[in-house]
């Protein structure tokens, strides 16, 4: 069991999700000799170059061929390997969608897909590089676990948890360095079990990925307005933590979901599906990216601001609907 000191937690969040992966995958390779990493010409971007140097026989470079990467991983896994396929979230979910469904999920193979730079984190790179619909697509596949960590400790810990699961997973990461620290101390994460970061009796904000930090910001603003917001880190999108949603619907009158993903089919939709089947008066507001292709580009922070994904914007939307 890997332990994380406060110092390490700080370091991981400073280096960001990509480098945290690059660091952890080497330890995973040391722990599990059956680890294989596959790259599709993004080994530097996904920080697996060091792994490839350390474990040259456990590293496959397929070039710019994501579909091939996924199917090869399924073949390796059918013969006992634990494979990590690394690429952008957009390519992982769109380019090789059918390979993910047929070869990874349907065959229930031990393949973990690491999707870097989800949401709009690639900023100026534009729509083709945004992971906007990945949750919606991946969520519809049976057998697939979907993890969307909010900071680098939760990512590292959930990644290790995932190595104990002999099956397919999609791990949705974001870009950049200096990730806001949500977990200051080591924590025992469990796949499928959300974490209530803040208690609150009035409303519940359920967030995933980097939006957890924004949800915490919003809850602080709301507190000054006398609204007590519960904040839930929904780090696993599938299997979804039904119990936490049910509890929130029973105890708070308003549930707000926040995600860096289009509103169609994402976390908000998943929560809506649960609430719709409950006998509850609790209402739902979904906050996320709009159902359109944006035409003006900017930095990640600027885009989040433009689309209402900041603590202030989220608090405003909640106050309007409270």
């Amino acid at each position, binding site marked *: 069991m890997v332990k994380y000191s406060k110092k390490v937690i700080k370091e991981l969040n400073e280096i960001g999700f990509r480098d945290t992966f690059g660091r952890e995958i080497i330890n995973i390779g040391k722990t599990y000799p059956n680890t*294989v990493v596959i790259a599709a010409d993004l080994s530097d971007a996904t920080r697996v170059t060091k792994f490839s140097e350390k474990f040259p*026989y*456990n590293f*496959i470079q*397929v*070039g710019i*061929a994501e*579909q*091939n990467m*996924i*199917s*090869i*991983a*399924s*073949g*390796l*896994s*059918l*013969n*006992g*390997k634990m494979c990590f396929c690394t690429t952008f979230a957009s390519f992982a979910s769109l380019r090789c969608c*059918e*390979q993910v469904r*047929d*070869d990874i999920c*349907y*065959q229930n193979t031990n393949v973990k897909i690491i999707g870097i730079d989800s949401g709009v984190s690639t900023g100026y790179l534009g729509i083709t590089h945004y992971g906007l619909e990945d949750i919606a697509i991946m969520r519809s596949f049976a057998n697939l676990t979907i993890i969307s960590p909010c900071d680098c400790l939760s990512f590292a810990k959930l990644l290790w948890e995932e190595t104990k699961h002999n099956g397919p997973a999609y791990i949705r990461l974001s870009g950049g360095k200096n990730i806001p620290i949500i977990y200051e101390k080591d924590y025992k994460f469990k796949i499928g079990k959300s974490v209530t970061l803040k208690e609150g009796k009035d409303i519940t904000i359920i967030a995933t990925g980097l939006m957890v930090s924004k949800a915490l910001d919003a809850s602080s603003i709301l507190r000054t307005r006398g609204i007590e917001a519960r904040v839930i880190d929904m780090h696993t999108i599938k299997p979804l933590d039904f119990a936490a949603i049910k509890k929130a619907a029973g105890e708070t009158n308003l549930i707000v979901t926040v995600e860096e993903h289009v509103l169609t089919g994402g976390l908000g939709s998943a929560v809506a599906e649960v609430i719709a089947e409950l006998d509850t008066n609790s209402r739902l507001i979904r906050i996320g990216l709009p159902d359109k292709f944006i035409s003006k580009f900017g930095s990640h922070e600027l885009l989040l601001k433009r689309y209402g994904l900041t603590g202030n914007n989220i608090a405003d939307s909640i106050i309007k609907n409270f």
Partner: protein
Amino acid sequence: MFVINKGLIKKIEEKARIIRKNAICLALKAGERGAHIGPALSIIDIVTALYMGVLKYDIRNPQWPDRDRFILSKGHAVLGLYPVLAEAGLLPFDLLKSFYSGETILSGHPVLNQEIGIEASTGSLGHGLSIGVGMALSAKMDNKNFRTFVLVGDGECNEGTIWEACMTASKYKLNNLIAIVDFNGLQADGFTKEVMNMIPLNDKWKSFGWCVEEVDGHSIEKLLAAFKKNKFVDKPSVIIAHTVKGKGVSFCENNKLYHHSRNFNLDLGILALKELGFSEKDIW
């Protein structure tokens, strides 16, 4: 030239005849719900030659880690796989009879089930060769000497992923990977020359760094010789097997109507069985 035991050839030819009969019986079970009988008849000699004369496997231990792997990438030709697995002793005959009858685990495309010899779920074209690359890579990583065989269609070679897999196999010198192209010249919409001409197919594979052999895909002797020969190369091998879609049943041969036929009724079934040297009483 590799000399192949004549007795073995005769034995496999007779098995292939029985397997064709059983494929016809399966098509009759599907009836008007439709069956890919043409593609099955096209591949039966290849698959029979593999299971009766080439592949290493243990019917008492179907998951034996050192077994050779066979992937039917053109999964729609499954009628040319199930009866071979049954004849090989991997798939129980009673299970074969459940095809298209009530609830069954035998679908119209193969579903991963190592217990009965099915190594991968296929159906959507262009996946199997990449899966095979993964299996061949794992053998190299683990210093195992089993071989991986993947049967693809000539129409299937339209898929870009076939060529992605080709590049990877070549880069990693996967001489433990053997692709077989069922080169029957017909695909769902018609003749491959018209739908999407892949000729010169030989040169395409060669230029991707593969060792290419062209054989008569209905000659057990030539198929066995080709499978033996490619044990001694340092790169992946492809056997372009010249076949006839619907082989063995005259009205199915080279007839695109039998790619997926919904009119394979009892009368046609009896006619087909007669051509194969069987009669109505052989239908199960």
